[in-house]
């Protein structure tokens, strides 16, 4: 599966059960990445991202267990502990800002290889960095 996350400067994701930030440009980009693909998410994430056009969105609380090979998972509130072996690729959107956090990304990206990086401007963020990570020694092959 392909994991998509948004992180702040300290790899934070949530504070007080709420996402740290959002940006319409990131939502649009996630829509591009998941176009004509299956995108899994839980009910919390669905409230913001459920309207993506051209994407097969599946809402499930245990989506990390259900997602299959090559399928995308938009992760905001979940620990990745226990599903590391299923992850083929990680897409990180970095806000390039610091927010309060009490929930952090828990996958050690130092054990992954950054394959690609690009930057773009958001609607409320000056610079958003998109990174793609693959497991070291492997190269993720997109079905397309």
């Amino acid at each position: 599966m392909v994991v998509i996350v948004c992180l702040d400067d300290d790899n934070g994701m949530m504070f007080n059960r709420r996402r740290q930030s959002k940006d319409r440009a990131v939502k649009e980009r996630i829509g591009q990445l998941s176009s004509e693909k299956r995108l899994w998410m839980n009910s919390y994430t669905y409230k913001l991202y459920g309207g993506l056009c051209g994407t097969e969105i599946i809402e499930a609380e245990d989506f990390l267990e259900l997602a299959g090979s090559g399928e995308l998972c938009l992760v905001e509130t979940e620990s990745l502990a226990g599903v590391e072996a299923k992850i083929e690729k990680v897409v990180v959107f970095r806000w390039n800002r610091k927010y309060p956090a009490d929930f952090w990304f828990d996958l050690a990206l130092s054990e992954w290889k950054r394959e690609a990086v690009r930057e773009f401007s958001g609607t409320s963020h000056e610079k958003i960095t998109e990174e793609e990570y693959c497991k070291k020694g492997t190269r993720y092959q997109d079905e397309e």
Partner: protein
Amino acid sequence: MKSNKRKIWMQYILIVYIICFGCLSMTACGSAENPDRGSAGQSETGQTYTASSLADIPEYTKEPYVVIDGNEPDFSEEDITTESFETYSELDELGRCRTAYANIGQDLMPTEERGSIGQVKPTGWQTVKYDLVDGRYLYNRCHLIGYQLTAENANEKNLITGTRYMNVEGMLPFENMVADYVKETGNHVLYRVDPVFEGGNLLAKGVQMEAWSVEDEGEGICFNVFVYNVQPGIDIDYATGASSQGSAAAVDTEQEQGGTEIRGNSNSKIYHCPGQADYEEMADSRNLVIFRSEQEAQEAGYRKAKR
């Protein structure tokens, strides 16, 4: 300050404030429809300290803020409105700031770069530098309500003496979160910042920050925290603002001899020399980087300001 103001009841005396806690608390945070996360993903080094009230704030250890009252802010029902407002309390008899309160909307947010605030000298102000402090200056003129939220410049009722650490590591992340939310949604956020002074101290021990998003009833923004006015590695006398690093006294920059200080902006990668237009304003910038020479700045990839 803008015209759209509401008069609010100010809580000033700490004991009254403490009594009020628990009496009128909104349960907005609990009503937000959010997932019930477990502890997975939480870092052992993360901020997990909580306090039931301002009277229960633990001493600073390693995190810049502590959660108060389960992150539930204490706004009253009658304050809930979808009209923007901002209000700043009169200074007290010692010249200290008190509550700053606003309903942040896009119409209050800045449309131009921040102006000069260097003429304001909040209580406890000392111009001192330490090598171990990011940007070297121990104190910043800290906006109670950040410039990015209500566009207040040199409003003495909205500026306190705060450590660099409190300003950048403590308050700024919360301001960022609120600013992003308002920009993305067009919604309003009730936002209150209370500086907390002990006795007749001129330097606040910290600030209480509360926020609650109005249109979605706290689903987007909801917090209640105390941010410590401390600087790791520096001892501070809160009665006066005097400071020291172990046995070494602070360097008073107004008496410091020799050595030109070049002030860079880490965001724009532009540096300013003494006498240039924005040199003085850069002293309080969150993006301040100090260089010993123009050459050092240029080698770091900075270019000189044109004015």
